[in-house]
């Protein structure tokens, strides 16, 4: 097999470490678009984990040479030189359900799970709502809808937009992507 890219090596190392720890994790963010028909360049690794695993994962990341630059009940950010890993901690029913239902893939980086396209839209909508300057998240939502229009569970997608009071945005996106 050809040598992995720099990001690929970082994912391989991280996925190997988390699988050895035996914790459940799932890709979210730009990397998670990949099996859902949207492939784009990205610099960051974003993972959803159960909040009960946060301390064990923190220890593992420190051993790998990362340092924690932010940690709250909902999210953690780790840096190692110019490499970054971001975590969302699932502790509410919706996020725990998305983590439990993430599909497994065997990839060049190892065996990993990826959140559903509906769940990804939900997380990206949450990020966009928290920081409207994150235009990449809006572009990703649009791309996911366009690429998966015929298979998306629209009831689930509508529920996420309702949760964030953004139903009008969904209608706009659906009109855009017809």
């Amino acid at each position, binding site marked *: 097999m*050809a040598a*992995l*890219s*720099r*990001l*690929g090596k970082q994912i391989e190392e991280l996925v190997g470490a988390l699988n050895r720890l035996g914790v459940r994790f799932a890709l979210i963010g730009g*990397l998670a678009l*990949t*099996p859902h*028909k949207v*492939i784009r*360049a990205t*610099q*960051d690794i974003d993972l959803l984990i159960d909040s009960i695993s946060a301390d064990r994962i923190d220890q593992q990341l420190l051993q790998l040479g990362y340092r924690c630059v*932010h*940690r*709250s009940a*909902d*999210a*953690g*950010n780790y840096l190692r030189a110019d490499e*970054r890993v*971001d975590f*969302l901690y699932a502790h*509410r029913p*919706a*996020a725990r359900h*998305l983590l439990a239902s993430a599909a497994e*893939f065997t*990839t*060049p*980086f190892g065996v990993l799970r990826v959140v559903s396209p509906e769940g990804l839209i*939900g*997380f990206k909508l*949450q*990020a966009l*709502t*928290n*920081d409207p*300057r*994150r235009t990449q998240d809006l572009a990703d939502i649009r791309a996911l809808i366009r690429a998966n229009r015929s298979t998306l569970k629209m009831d689930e997608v509508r529920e*996420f937009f309702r*949760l*964030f009071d953004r139903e009008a945005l969904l209608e706009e996106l659906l009109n855009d992507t017809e």
Partner: protein
Amino acid sequence: MTPSSEDAAVLASDAGVVTSPPDTRDPFAALDDLMAVIDLLSPRWPDRRNGAGLGSFRL
């Protein structure tokens, strides 16, 4: 100046058709190939925003 219909025709002239290559490859391998090419281009990535873990979390 109002563009003539001839100008508009030039601007809107044939831009090709939208097609996608057949998706027979492992998408993660395709992503890694893309990132390998980007490595070779020595990218200067945009600054990361701070506070990615801040805000209201409802999920």
